[in-house]
């Protein structure tokens, strides 16, 4: 059962990601990305990270992707043109990606004993504990990050302002 669910969501994630690359109009790519995030949220749930799964849906899919869609509509983005100005990216792009992939895989494989398994429920989500940690041990990063968001807001407003 677990395996089936895993493969379904994994295939969905990969499929949506491929679709992101395949589509020419950015709005289609944005919607594909939302699909990826939803699939990932499910996977998080299967790994027992409930808080993260919910945060993923609310923050990522709900806020960030909405922002993306707003911008795409604001700028009236059209289909992609067929320019190609980077010789390096064109010829070396695919090999580089494949090599990168294999390298990452190799490293990850080394770190993990081959027989470790994931079972549902082995590591239940501890949202309260996360909250506690955030406000106790990781208080400083928490506060800093909130100021960061403030700065980001101000920056975004200033950058995107219309010149009058």
């Amino acid at each position, binding site marked *: 059962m*677990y395996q089936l669910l*895993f493969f379904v969501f994994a295939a969905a994630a990969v499929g949506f990601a491929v679709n*992101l690359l395949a589509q020419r109009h950015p709005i289609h790519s944005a919607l594909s990305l939302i699909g990826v995030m939803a699939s990932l949220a499910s996977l998080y749930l299967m790994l027992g990270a409930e808080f993260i799964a919910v945060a993923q849906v609310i*923050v990522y899919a709900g806020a*960030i992707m909405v922002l993306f869609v707003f*911008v795409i509509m604001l*700028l009236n983005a059209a289909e992609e043109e067929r320019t190609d100005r980077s010789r390096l990216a064109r010829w070396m792009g695919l090999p580089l990606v494949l090599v990168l992939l294999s390298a990452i895989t190799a490293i990850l494989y080394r770190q993990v004993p081959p027989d470790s398994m994931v079972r549902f429920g082995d590591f239940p989500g501890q949202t309260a504990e996360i909250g506690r940690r955030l406000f106790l041990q990781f208080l400083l990063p928490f506060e800093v990050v909130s100021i960061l*968001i403030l700065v980001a807001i101000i920056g975004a*407003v200033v950058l995107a302002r219309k010149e009058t």
Partner: protein
Amino acid sequence: MVPLSYYLILSAILFGLGVAGFLFKRNIITMFMSVELMLNAVNLTFVAFSYHLRQLDGQIFVFFVMVIAAAEAAVGLAIIIAVFRNRESLNADRMDLMKL
């Protein structure tokens, strides 16, 4: 039950797709979305390892990554808007004012 390595491989694949998207797509918003895809792939890795090591630190890190991704998306999109106003185009190949 699924071997942990499957999650990791999935994450690697998603990361690779994100890199490919960044290299091959020309619309700058799409490139930005590929970056978000890469971040998500990394988040998956963190959560997988958090499970594997039975520690919550991975999930807290993912939390921070998300926050930062949000801030970054806001600012990045603002920049894209500003650049669009200047260059009248969303094609990354047209944004080469830094050429030597």
